[in-house]
C-alpha cells in the first residue's frame, strides 16, 4: 500500500471500524480525546518552556498564567481521566467477565469530561481566568485581577468533569456488584468486600487453609480502591466549586460577600485534602493496578506476593486520606503535629506502598524471563523507573527542614511532579495502550515499529531530562509559578526546553503512528454508532 492509501484506510487496511462493539468504540473515543488533550498539554508546556527562557512579547503575562492554570487541569482531567476512565470502563467488565453496568452512563462520562475540559480551557483562554489549580483562597474570587464571568464558565467546566467522574464511580461499583440479566444472583456484598480489600485484609490474619479465595482480580481491586478516592475528590472539588460560584454569581448580581468569611488556612487544608486524593491517592493506586494488569497479561502469571499487594492497596487508600499536610509544611500557622504526622510520617509510607508495588512487579516479570521486549514491556519499565525517580524526590521535599528551601521551587514541579506524571504515569498509560491496541481494534497492526521505538526513547530521555534540568534550577533557587524577566536561569531553561521538545516530537511520532495504523477513515469511524450489542465487549467469534 502506498502512503496515501495507508493514511486513508490504515496499515494494510486491517482496521475495520464497523467491526467494533459499542464498548470498543467508547474506549477508543476516550483514548483519542485523551491523546488530543495530551497534545494540548504538551503544546502549552512548550509555550511555557519558551516563556521561561524569554518572555514572549505577543503573549501577555495574563495569558501565560491562564495557560499555567489550564495546563495541569487539561493534562489530568482532559487527558489522564479520559484515558484511565475509558480503559477501566472496559477492563473492569473484561476482567469480571460480565457487561458494563451501564453503557449509557459510560457515554455520559465521556461527553462530560470532553465538554467540561473544553469549557474550562476556553474560558481560561478567552478570559485569562488564572487562579491556578490550587485556588488558594481568596484568589479565585479576586475580581480586581479576574473576570467573574470567565471564572463562572471555568468552574462550570470543572464541575462537568467532576459530574462525569461521579458517573464513572457509580458505573464501576455497580459493574463489580450487580447481577446481569438472566444470570444467577451474584454475591454483591462479598464482591464489594473483596474489591475494597476487606476480605484480603481478613486473609492476612488467617491460616492458609482458612483463607478465602479473592472474588475480584487484583487489578480490579486496585481500580475499586482508586475509585473511592475519585468519588471523594469529586465531592471536594464540586463543593469548593459551588462555594466559589456563590461568590462569583453574587458579584455579577451586584452583591459583595466578604471573602474573610472563609478561613484561608482551613480552606487550604480542605482543598489540599481533596487534591491529594488525586496526586497521592488515585494516581498511585490506579498506576499500581495498571502495573499489575499489564504484568499479568505480559507474563500470564499471578503477581508475586499478591495478598500483600492487595493489603498495600488498602494501606495506600488510607495513606491518601491522611497525607495532605506535606503541602503545608511552609505554612507557619499549620499545627506542628499535622506537619510531622501527616506531612512527614504518613507521606513516608508512600515510599513503602509504591516501593512494594515496584518490587513485586519486577519479581513477577523476572520470574517469567525470557520476555520479548515488546512496546508494552519497555513502556512498563519506563513507568516503573519514573516512579522510582519521582517518589523519593517527593519524600525528600516532604521534610520540614528541606521543604524550607524547596517549597514552590522548580524542584517540586520538575523531578517530582513532571517525572511522576510524564515518565511514571504517562509511560504506564502508553504501555496499556500498546497492550490493548490489538484487542480493542480487533487486530489492527501498528504502522511502524521504528516510530514506536523513537516514541519510547524520545519520551524517556525528554521527560527525565526536563525534570532534571528543572530540578537543578530549583536547587539554585528558581521558583515555579512566576516569570523571570532577566534570564536568571537561562542555561537550565534552555536545556529543559530542548528536553521538552523531545517530548513533543515523541508525542507527534506516536500520534502519527496511531493515525497511520487506523487510517483517517478508521479514526472517523470510531465516532460513528456501532450496530452491535452494547453489552458485548469484543465481537462474538463466528
Amino acid at each position, binding site marked *: 500500500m502506498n502512503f496515501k492509501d495507508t493514511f486513508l484506510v490504515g496499515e494494510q487496511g486491517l482496521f475495520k471500524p464497523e467491526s467494533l462493539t459499542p464498548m470498543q468504540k467508547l474506549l477508543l473515543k476516550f483514548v483519542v480525546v485523551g491523546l488530543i488533550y495530551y497534545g494540548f498539554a504538551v503544546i502549552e508546556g512548550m509555550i511555557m518552556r519558551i516563556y521561561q527562557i524569554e518572555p514572549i512579547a505577543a503573549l501577555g503575562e495574563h495569558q501565560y*498564567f491562564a495557560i499555567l492554570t489550564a495546563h495541569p487541569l487539561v493534562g489530568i482531567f482532559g487527558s489522564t481521566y479520559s484515558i484511565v476512565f475509558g480503559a477501566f470502563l472496559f477492563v473492569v467488565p473484561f476482567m469480571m467477565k460480565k457487561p458494563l453496568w451501564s453503557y449509557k452512563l459510560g457515554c455520559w462520562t465521556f461527553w462530560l469530561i470532553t465538554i467540561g475540559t473544553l469549557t474550562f480551557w476556553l474560558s481560561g483562554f478567552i478570559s485569562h481566568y*488564572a487562579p491556578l489549580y490550587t485556588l488558594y483562597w481568596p484568589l479565585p474570587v479576586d475580581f480586581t485581577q479576574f473576570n467573574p464571568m470567565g471564572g463562572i464558565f471555568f468552574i462550570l467546566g470543572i464541575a462537568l468533569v467532576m459530574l462525569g467522574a461521579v458517573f464513572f464511580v457509580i458505573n464501576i461499583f455497580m459493574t463489580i456488584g450487580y447481577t446481569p440479566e438472566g444470570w444467577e444472583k451474584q454475591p454483591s456484598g462479598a464482591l464489594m468486600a473483596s474489591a475494597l480489600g476487606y476480605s484480603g485484609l481478613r486473609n492476612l490474619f488467617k491460616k492458609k487453609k482458612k483463607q478465602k479465595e479473592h472474588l475480584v482480580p487484583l487489578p480490579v481491586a486496585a481500580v475499586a480502591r482508586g475509585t473511592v478516592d475519585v468519588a471523594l475528590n469529586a465531592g471536594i472539588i464540586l463543593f469548593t466549586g459551588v462555594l466559589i460560584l456563590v461568590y462569583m454569581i453574587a458579584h455579577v448580581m451586584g452583591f459583595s460577600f466578604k471573602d474573610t468569611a472563609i478561613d484561608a488556612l482551613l480552606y487550604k487544608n480542605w482543598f489540599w485534602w481533596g487534591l491529594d486524593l488525586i496526586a497521592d491517592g488515585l494516581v498511585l493506586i490506579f498506576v499500581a493496578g495498571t502495573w499489575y494488569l499489564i504484568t499479568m497479561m505480559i507474563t500470564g502469571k499471578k503477581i508475586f506476593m499478591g495478598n500483600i499487594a492487595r493489603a498495600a492497596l488498602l494501606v495506600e487508600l488510607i495513606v491518601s486520606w491522611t497525607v495532605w499536610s506535606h503541602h503545608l509544611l511552609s505554612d507557619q500557622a499549620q499545627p506542628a503535629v499535622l506537619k510531622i504526622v501527616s506531612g512527614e510520617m504518613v507521606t513516608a509510607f508512600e515510599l*513503602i506502598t509504591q516501593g512494594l508495588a515496584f518490587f513485586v512487579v519486577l519479581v513477577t516479570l*523476572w520470574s517469567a524471563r525470557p520476555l520479548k521486549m515488546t512496546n508494552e514491556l519497555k513502556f512498563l519499565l519506563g513507568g516503573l523507573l519514573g516512579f522510582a525517580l519521582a517518589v523519593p524526590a517527593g519524600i525528600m521535599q516532604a521534610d520540614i527542614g528541606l521543604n524550607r528551601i524547596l517549597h514552590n521551587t522548580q524542584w517540586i514541579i520538575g523531578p517530582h511532579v513532571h517525572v511522576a506524571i510524564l515518565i511514571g504515569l504517562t509511560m504506564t498509560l502508553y504501555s496499556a495502550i500498546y497492550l490493548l491496541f490489538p484487542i480493542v481494534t480487533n487486530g489492527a497492526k501498528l504502522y511502524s515499529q521504528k516510530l514506536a521505538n523513537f516514541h519510547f526513547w524520545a519520551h524517556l530521555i525528554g521527560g527525565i531530562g526536563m525534570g532534571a534540568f528543572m530540578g537543578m534550577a530549583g536547587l539554585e533557587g528558581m521558583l515555579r509559578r512566576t516569570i523571570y524577566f532577566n534570564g536568571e536561569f537561562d542555561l537550565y531553561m534552555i536545556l529543559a526546553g530542548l528536553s521538552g521538545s523531545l517530548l513533543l516530537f515523541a508525542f507527534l511520532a506516536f500520534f502519527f503512528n496511531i493515525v497511520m495504523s487506523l487510517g483517517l477513515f478508521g479514526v472517523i469511524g470510531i465516532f460513528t454508532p456501532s450496530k452491535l450489542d452494547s453489552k458485548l465487549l469484543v465481537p462474538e467469534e463466528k
Partner: protein
Amino acid sequence: MVDTQLVLWGQTIAYSSYAIVIILLMSWFGYNVSKPGKAGLVKPAIFYTFVGFLTVLGVSLHIVTYNTIPWTAIDLNRDDIQADKTFYITVENHEFKLPSEKLRIKVGEKVVFDVTSNDLTYGFGLFRKDNSMLMQMQVVPGHRNDIMWEFVQPGTYTIRSTEYSGPKGTRMILPDVVEVTN
C-alpha cells in the same frame, strides 16, 4: 556552620547518586529480562527485608534532618526561643510594607519575620544575590505567619514573594533590603 547551600549540595549529591543507580539498575533489568536464563524464585524473606529497608529509610530521613539541619528544630520550637529581633511586615495589594527601608541584622542573631497579609495568600522568601534561596514561608491571610531564622553568614538578601497571588505577584521583589553584617 550548616547553611542552606551546604544542605542543598548534600541533597544534590544524594539524589543524583540515587538517580544514576536506579537508572543503571533498570537498564540492567531491561537488558536481562529479555535474555534466556534461569528465572529463580525470590524468597519472601527478601521481599520483607526490602519493605523493612524502605520503612527505616522513610523514617530515618526525618530523624537525620531534624538533627543536622539547624533551622528545623528552631522552627518547631520557635515559640520557646527568645528572638533577638522581630520585624513586623505587612503585605497588601501585592506590596510588602517593611518597618524600615532596610532590615539590618547581625550575624548570629535569631530574628523573627512576622508577616501579615491583609488580602491574598502570598509567600515570603529571602534570596541571595545569585538568586539562590535562603528560606521561605507561606503568608496566609487571617493567620500569624512567623519564621525564626538564625543568620550564620554576612550578606545582602532580596525579599521576594514565593507564592502565586495572581499575575501582579510576579513583581513582588524588594532587592537587597536585608543586610546581615558581622
